[in-house]
């Protein structure tokens, strides 16, 4: 049983480097405490001696994959909320959309196609729909925004189509948008039809080559915290499909601490205030 609750600095760093190498997700020091707590639970459960022994097991055992998956799930609390990670949303609204509607060669086709890949219960595509609507009202009346949102889970898709959310999921929605785009439904809120009409929800299997090849061209793809569970080879394939799917000048947005460094160098990494995205040039 570990005598202290603290993981020493070097164990933390080698664990996080290992996790980064295997999954492409980076845990900052802010996550250290959470990591400690979750690993400690695991140490007790599986009778490891201390943090070091656990780290050794994770990094050198044959079955590290299952343990890694367990650890991810525990650390990246798999919550879904509207307006998740504001710097990314800001970059989408204030930089990416603005840039895309000003691209000279798009003048004839005033539709932007946006893809939410791994949309879960719909928080992401609805957030993007709100941003697009607001953007259109302020800057681009003549533009149409079409959002496709896919997920593997039928249950999640059903909830997404239903569009009913509790206050907690909506806690980051600015009040003016809550009023404008939602109807109160008991203790919950229901998304208004004007947003629903902007989105097509559909069953999506990112590993299905036939399906991926048939998806139409996109201007922006959001695929946040979905690929961290994939093997390197699968990830490479999926990212390649995204690359082919994007129009020139389009952007791929992944989770805020995810990386494609070991996956591809095809994109240009663009830094925005507090966020980065991958651009196809």
């Amino acid at each position, binding site marked *: 049983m570990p005598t202290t609750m603290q993981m020493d600095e070097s164990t933390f760093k080698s664990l996080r480097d290992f996790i980064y190498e295997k999954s492409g997700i980076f845990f900052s020091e802010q996550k250290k405490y959470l990591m400690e707590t979750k690993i400690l639970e695991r140490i007790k459960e599986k009778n490891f001696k201390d943090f070091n022994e656990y780290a050794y097991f994770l990094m050198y055992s044959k079955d590290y994959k299952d343990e890694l998956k367990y650890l991810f799930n525990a650390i990246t609390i798999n919550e879904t909320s509207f307006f998740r990670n504001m710097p990314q949303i800001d970059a989408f609204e204030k930089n990416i959309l603005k840039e895309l509607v000003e691209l000279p060669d798009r003048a004839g086709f005033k539709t932007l196609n946006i893809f939410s890949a791994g949309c879960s219960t719909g928080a992401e595509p609805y957030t993007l729909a709100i941003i697009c609507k607001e953007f259109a009202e302020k800057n681009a009346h003549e533009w149409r925004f079409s959002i496709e949102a896919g997920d593997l889970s039928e249950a999640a898709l059903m909830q997404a189509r239903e569009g009913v959310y509790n206050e907690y999921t909506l806690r980051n929605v600015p009040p003016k948008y809550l009023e404008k785009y939602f109807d109160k439904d008991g203790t919950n809120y229901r998304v208004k039809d004007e947003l629903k009409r902007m989105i097509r929800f559909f069953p999506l299997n990112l590993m299905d080559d036939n399906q991926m090849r048939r998806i139409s061209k996109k201007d922006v793809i959001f695929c946040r915290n979905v690929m961290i569970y994939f093997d390197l080879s699968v990830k490479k394939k999926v990212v390649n499909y995204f690359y082919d799917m994007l129009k020139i000048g389009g952007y791929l947005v992944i989770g805020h601490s995810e990386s494609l460094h070991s996956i591809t160098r095809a994109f*240009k990494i663009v830094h925005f*205030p507090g966020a980065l995205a991958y651009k196809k040039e």
Partner: protein
Amino acid sequence: MDTQVRERILELIGGIDSLPTLPHVASQIMDMAMSSGSSIRNIAEILSKDPSLASKVLKVANSAFYGLKQQVNSLELALVVLGMHEINHLVLSVSVFSAFADKEDKTGFSREKFWEHSAACGHFARILCKKLKETTLGGEAFVGGLLHDIGKIVLDEFSHDTFIGILQEAQEKNTGVYEIETEKLGFSHADIGAVLAEKWNLPPSVVDVIQNHHEPLNATNSPFLVAVVRIADLFCKAKEIGFGCDRKPFILEEDISWEIIQKTKPELKNLDIEKFTYELDDEVEKVKEFVSINRGR
């Protein structure tokens, strides 16, 4: 620098003597570090003549920001552990805070945010040097980063309304302060900073960083250092540290500074940019601590 520009700057501030001075002890130590034949004991003696400066130097040396593996409880030990050059850079970085310390914040320009941005820039520049295996340049990179925008403080003190007008215009137009300054005044904070840096007798590499951080191709003394600080400055923007005026995105590989660094460090193209970006998140709190130690009266 153009002599005309220099004269116009001196006119604006009312002569070179109006500019603040560095604490005497800091100038002495800087001279000693640059000349050979000074011993660690001499430096410790000089530094101990300014107890408030000395205590801040020790505080910073022992902070998470500095990241020493051992505690240094005396000046002598600090000197042994850090060496003469590093102590010089540390003393200098602590001193600049006192050179501008007595002035209250005026509206529209937060000194705290200014110093956070400056310190982060210096810190990131030092980290970048380490990544590029140029650890010995770390101290200069830090001082250069810390002081790169020092001309803005001078402008704020000597021509506050003009400066605030420039900041506002930069924000409205979503462009850089440097561009607006050049358009409005015919010179920029980089020129003003260089005038101050020369008065303070700062090392030529640091003067070069201050003068050319917006035009790295004009660097004469230390193009590598200027480019590193410029990249660190971009990372500050990516981390939203300080008073970023514009939201302009950037692509590192397309920045001229990136190319300048790559000329001597081809391995730069293998840098894991994403990881480097995320790693800097761990540094932001340390930078704030550094600023608060130095701004504490």
